[in-house]
């Protein structure tokens, strides 16, 4: 069995805000900016909740009040860092046995400027699934992208 160790997905953005504000909007107000199309709820996304403490839940609330778990908080150090467990598998189903990590660092560059660095890692955990490309396409990545593109357009 060939094992792949893919590089993490790394993204960063610099915002005009203090580290505290950047952290609070990112973590405590995730529902204000999370793209509504990226949702697991049947009734559409009302908001997203991150319980900013180690062991806290990370979940979505639908307009009808239903909740869908996304993962949990592994570590939280306001305003410097939060480490989240992303537990949605390649089928976008919550799986408590599945685990990838999303680390977000808030690096203050001045009084009113913060660079937010995001790393989504342990992607090798998708390995078996990701290699099954034929099945993955059949099970909906193509459809998902088409739906996403339609929303963006």
């Amino acid at each position, binding site marked *: 069995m060939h094992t792949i160790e893919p590089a993490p997905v790394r993204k960063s953005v610099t915002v005009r805000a203090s580290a505290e504000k950047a952290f609070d909007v*990112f973590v405590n107000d995730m529902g204000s900016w999370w793209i509504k199309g990226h949702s697991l709820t049947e009734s559409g996304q009302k908001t997203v909740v991150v319980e900013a403490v180690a062991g806290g839940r990370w979940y979505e609330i639908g307009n009808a009040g239903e909740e869908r778990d996304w993962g949990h908080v592994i570590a939280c150090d306001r305003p410097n860092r939060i480490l989240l467990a992303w537990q949605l598998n390649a089928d976008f189903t919550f799986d408590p046995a599945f685990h990838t990590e999303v680390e977000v660092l808030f690096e203050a560059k001045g009084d009113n400027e913060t660079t937010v660095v995001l790393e989504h890692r342990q992607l090798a955990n998708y390995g078996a699934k990701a290699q099954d490309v034929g099945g993955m396409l059949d099970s909906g990545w193509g459809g998902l992208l088409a739906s996403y593109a339609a929303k963006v357009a």
Partner: protein
Amino acid sequence: MTYEDRLFAALADPTRRAIFERVAGQRQSVAELARTMPVSQPAISQHLKILKEARLVRDVPSGARRIYSIDPEGLGPLRAWLDRFWSEQLAAFKAAVETADDS
């Protein structure tokens, strides 16, 4: 074509998908692939070129041959999706944090 267009175009062809799956299973040369598939070596080379352009496979020289394997930086469609997903989310976050009330 965008990267995603290339990616899905690359995997839309069943022969190319079969080649990708074999390379994912075990790193190998064009000649090794040709021995186990009803496809000519030049055709396999052409398919591999397209897979490489889609960042699904990479090749390293080994003597006179080139050995093909999965691109460790890539993860096929999943990775393309994640890259775009987080770019969009961070752009939305930037817009939100910069328009939030400074109270």
